[in-house]
């Protein structure tokens, strides 16, 4: 997509529960085309919950608030409808489907996401193979089963590959950096930058500063116990590395950062 994009993803006052457990509490977040946001926070803070709530996983119930794309309320849409609105999640733990070949999966998904595009099978295969090359994955991957028997790093790269292939408006990367070695991390970071340049709005969920050093996010948010406790620029990541998340838990944010 070459033309300039002006998309806005609004998360307003969002509270989410799983089963009987309230996890996200009145969360607000706005992401625009071409922005990279990072979401950091300790284990169990609710980062994946936010990702799942945005894509519309029915296990996660929205109790207050809404999610909007360009002003359109998508809170009640099903998973596949939100995907068609331009939401994409690179899963923290992508599920495997034995026997379902990547090429069949990718093609069906692509046709579903871009129903008006005429898809030439041969060209599509070439495009996928080119992306496989970019992510240093073997061409034979197109005939492998979806996430079946792939290493952790390979799975993550296939998720990032889909981000470039499907050209969504907004991308959430849930711990895309875990399980990646330095080389793979660089490749994925490059892919993220590429997506940003093409106008995708990006939310990177991570524990570690490492990937952020490569992609230089525009904003960093810290999520603790289901609430964003601080938002700011790159210096936040440094602070977390120094003090850890306990720093926020003690409610000393205002005192120290002020």
């Amino acid at each position: 997509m070459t033309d300039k994009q002006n998309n806005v993803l609004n998360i307003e006052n969002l509270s989410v529960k799983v089963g009987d457990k309230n996890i996200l509490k009145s969360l607000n977040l706005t992401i625009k085309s071409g922005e990279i946001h990072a979401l950091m926070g300790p284990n169990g803070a609710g980062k994946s919950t936010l990702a799942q709530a945005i894509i519309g996983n029915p296990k996660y119930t929205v109790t207050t608030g809404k999610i909007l794309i360009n002003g359109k309320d998508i809170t009640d849409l099903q998973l596949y409808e939100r995907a068609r609105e331009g939401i994409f999640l690179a899963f923290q733990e992508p599920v495997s489907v034995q026997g379902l070949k990547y090429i069949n999966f990718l093609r069906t998904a692509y046709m579903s996401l871009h129903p008006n595009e005429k898809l030439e099978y041969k060209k599509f295969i070439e495009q996928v193979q080119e992306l496989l090359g970019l992510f240093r994955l073997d061409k034979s991957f197109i005939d492998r089963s979806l996430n079946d028997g792939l290493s952790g790093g390979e799975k993550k790269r296939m998720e990032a590959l889909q981000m470039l292939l499907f050209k969504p408006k907004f991308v959430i990367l849930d711990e895309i950096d875990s399980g990646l070695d330095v080389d793979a991390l660089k490749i994925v970071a490059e892919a993220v930058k590429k997506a940003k340049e093409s106008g995708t709005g990006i939310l990177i969920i991570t524990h570690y500063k490492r990937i952020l050093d490569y992609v230089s996010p525009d904003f960093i948010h810290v999520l603790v116990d289901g609430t964003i406790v601080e938002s700011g620029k790159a210096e936040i990541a440094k602070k977390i590395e120094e003090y850890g998340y306990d720093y926020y838990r003690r409610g000393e944010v205002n005192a120290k950062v002020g």
Partner: protein
Amino acid sequence: MQKLDENFEIKKDKYDFKTNIKPVYQVGQGLTRSVVEEISRVKKEPEWMKNIRLRALEIFNSKPLPTWGPDLSELNFDEITYYIKPEDRKSSSWDEVPKEIKETFDKLGVPEMERKYLAGTVAQFESEGVYSKIKKQWEEKGVIFMDMDSALQKYPEIIREHFGKVVPASDNKFAALNTAVWSGGSFLYIPKGVHVDLPVQAYFRMNGELEGQFERTLIVAEEGASVHYIEGCTAPTYSRYALHAAVVEVYAKKNSKVRYTSIQNWSDNVINLPTKRAWVEENARMEWVQGSLGSKITMTYPSSILRGEYASTSNLNVALAMGEVWKDNGAKVVHAAPNTSSKVVAKSISGRGGMSVYRGLLRINQGAYNSKSSVQCDALIVDDISKSNTYPHNEILDDTAVFSHEASVGKISEEQINYLMSRGIREEDARSLIVLGFLDDVLKEIPLEYSIEFNKLIRLEMSKMGAVG
């Protein structure tokens, strides 16, 4: 509309239509000695065949229904019509086939398939073959492909030599029934060394309820011959049952190769109980491919008796048990000679309350040394109300045998559906993708026209299913 969604236009209705014709002849309901004699008389059969029938009737009467597997108590042998002759003529040109019957096969795409990729075709309507043709180049090489009744008139010696040897009437109640009242079926004979490199196809169509189709198929592949036989079966839906009880006997002689592909898409009132068996001689190969799409009840266990050294067999079974159906599928292999090998792969899908069973018998006789066998059965259950069971029975009597058995039962998980849906894929398409992925390696083995059919049917079935959970 996107491409994928167009596939949902396809309905099973393609097969679900009734042909309006008045049979030229039919016997009364019920099974008596005089009905059997009558069938034989109408067919102007030799005395020996009539005697085989009458003996088989006694065996049928003396045998109980199977006590295992699906419930067959709905069958009432007194209300079934055992022989329905739709038409006097047997044609070798579609133009001569009566209009209504020709239209029936046109709708089913039979003449089209024949033109496109077959070496020969037999088409049966109710109890009789109405059309048969083998292309000239094969006819000239001595290949015979015709309906079984015509074959009995023309080649009584070959039939007498082979009939009822591989599947004796005493094998089971329904083999006995078939032997008593058989009609139609196909006779395929491949002379020594002849390779028929296009498939031949027999297509069986039933048109009524409370009737039986009892075709009898005999395939003889002489030394070094090879052939691929395809069988297709359909019927319209009725509220009462119809019975299909075929017998198939295959002789795969030394160094020959026979592939038998059966794609049944019977309507969901059909009780399908065929007995299929092959004798496989030295260095010969027998391949069974079974696609079980339709029917209310199916019990079928294609068997290979590996009688000669280095004989081999494969048995591939794909069963769809969707809705109120019971699919009891399996394979039997007897390794009766050294260095024989077998491979069984069974895959089933159960959904909407369907029951799918794998029932297998594998025997490696003592003295069948260095024999190899592998059995793999995988079941996929697509919801919480459907079932799958596996009853493998293995008798490995030789110490040198190499044998493996693997079984798996899988379920479509919510996580899988969610993941696929998060890529813009609708729920029913997600299910179809998972099911088709599960079948990917076996659908390749099915002739293209039928695997497309399989594909469409799975999409249709998945679209009928409710939400996950």
